[in-house]
């Protein structure tokens, strides 16, 4: 007996769908369910239904609201800088043409490095006393003493310092995506604009960027989602400190769950965080990307 194509397709998809249902959807369901309980961190301990109490506690806590703002600021800094640097490199590679191919490949190397290693590496560069960056800036005469800027110990700037490894790791990705987009801009269009006397800035802002918009939207959304979930690099550099100044949402939830032993509250925070991410992502896709309205 021959089954229909539709059914055959369903059979092909079933194992993967089942896997995602069991190992992603079900844990998510558990997360939402847990957010309604007050849970003792000890296994087998009491578990009392408290309704939305955990949500009220989350929104009332300074740590949660602060982490929310810090996550936003962190994401904005990371994505904006990556975009600027990535676009610059993509334009550079495009301008150099085929001969730059080898370097384009080499430029991808940080993408293979574990974020935990990247975080460690930059911590080593920025750390007080034996960090190389302070020393080099001092030797160049920019800083009066190598420890003048406490990259990772000054609460005022630490959020930007911990963003550096993330930017270093994934500028290559931005560059790759934007470069791919640039290759699809018809050459004649650029020539025509040049013949009309368009200068580089006009070319960039009136032709290249508008044409790249769908590519830019995808890149920004993908990287935005990832930056908002940053964990490894921050954990290894500062563990959220000093004074929680680099504690983003992932870290706060992790610490609430593991260190402070409050799974109920952590689950409520996780649920809010997840919903916020979904909301922002859909909003971004709908407004920046505007699928279907381009043609």
């Amino acid at each position: 007996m021959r089954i229909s194509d539709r059914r055959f397709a369903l059979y092909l998809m079933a194992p993967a769908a089942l896997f995602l249902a069991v190992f992603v959807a079900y844990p998510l369901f558990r997360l939402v369910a847990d957010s309604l309980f007050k849970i003792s961190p000890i296994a087998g301990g009491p578990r009392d239904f408290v309704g939305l109490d955990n949500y009220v506690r989350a929104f009332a806590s300074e740590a949660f609201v602060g982490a929310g703002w810090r996550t936003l600021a962190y994401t904005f800094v990371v994505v904006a800088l990556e975009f600027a640097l990535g676009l610059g490199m993509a334009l550079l590679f495009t301008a150099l043409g085929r001969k730059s191919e080898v370097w384009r490949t080499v430029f991808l190397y940080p993408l293979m490095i574990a974020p935990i290693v990247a975080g460690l590496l930059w911590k080593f560069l920025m750390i007080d006393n034996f960090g190389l960056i302070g020393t080099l800036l001092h030797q160049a005469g920019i800083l009066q003493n190598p420890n003048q800027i406490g990259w990772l110990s000054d609460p005022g700037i630490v959020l930007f310092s911990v963003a550096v490894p993330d930017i270093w790791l994934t500028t290559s990705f931005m560059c790759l995506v934007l470069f791919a987009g640039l290759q699809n801009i018809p050459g004649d269009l650029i020539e025509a604009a040049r013949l009309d006397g368009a200068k580089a800035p006009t070319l960039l802002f009136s032709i290249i960027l508008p044409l790249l918009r769908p590519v830019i939207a995808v890149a920004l959304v993908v990287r935005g989602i990832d930056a908002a979930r940053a964990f490894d690099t921050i954990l290894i550099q500062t563990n959220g400190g000093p004074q929680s100044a680099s504690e983003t949402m992932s870290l706060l939830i992790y610490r609430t769950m593991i260190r402070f032993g409050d799974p109920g509250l952590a689950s409520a925070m996780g649920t809010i965080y997840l919903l916020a991410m979904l909301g922002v992502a859909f909003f971004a896709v709908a407004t920046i990307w505007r699928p279907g309205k381009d043609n």
Partner: protein
Amino acid sequence: MSTAETPINDRFAAEAAASRPRHSGVVSAILATGTKSSGATAGAAPTRALPAEPVLLTPAASGTGRPRRRNHHAEGLEAGKRSTRILLWIVLAAAMVLYGFPFLYLLFTSFKTPIDTIAVPPTILPKEWTLENYANALGRNGVLASFINSVQTAVISTVLSLALAIPAAYGITRYKTPSGRVFIMAALVTRMVPPVAIGIPLASMMASAGLADTPIALSIAHTTISLPLSIWLMSSFFEAVPNDLEEAATVDGCSRLGALWRVVIPVVSGGIAVTAIFAFLASWNEFLFALLMTAIRSQTTPVVIANFQTQFGLDWGSMTALAAVYSIPVILLTLLLQRKIVAGMTLGAVKG
């Protein structure tokens, strides 16, 4: 995972997007990165439609008899003037040095003596080259075991990812049913789930299944990260295979499954290699799930690297050595395979 899996995933997603020929569909809507322009080459990788090689015009050939200075034949956004090009090469060299320096510094540091590692002020190059840090790092208890765990976990996760993603992606792209469209959208949503949100419930599920602290449990967790992206990647590779291929096979008496196995899979083998590498790296570099789900027995190297910091105070030398040993094989492997992968992708899109 937080950022753990992202770089490499995104990088391959981008490459797949760039390699995909023009077609419509949900997958392209998700990964569409401007491949709509009609002149786009359907080939692999972000190679551009090549400008002709510079043509050397002799005075005679130029027709007018007047010698004409001919610049590099540039097209579109490529820089034309020689002086501009030289300047741009200098900018590129500076950018590459800056971008490469952090990792080189890690390498140099790993060859310093443990005391020089934290000398004030630090030097860029070791005063004296030694393998002491490597001996210390690799000789430490549990470090070699963690390498084995990392390899094991990554291999299991890669195989699992491929085994699930290949049929699913094929079902989505070849039959274009409404359920397929819903499924790939659901996979997109999975990508937004913060790992910290599902890590704990997942860990307790594994514990109740008797899998606590095993490479199997961790590789299942890693597959939740790599499966959605494997599905998208494989979908875009399958999209590039012309339908006629299986139609011919089915006419020849192959079953649908037989056509997939014997005809389509060999054609997309390059794509499978790309997907496998990305799945492997996603697991290899992952940290958060590994931190939550492993203790002594199945700890992977990223967790061990992170533990150096708390457990042994400031043992920077060993940390840099271990980080170098962990990173270099995958950097080299991916860079070496890069050309093969690109070639595989080109072959993958053969016309029937």
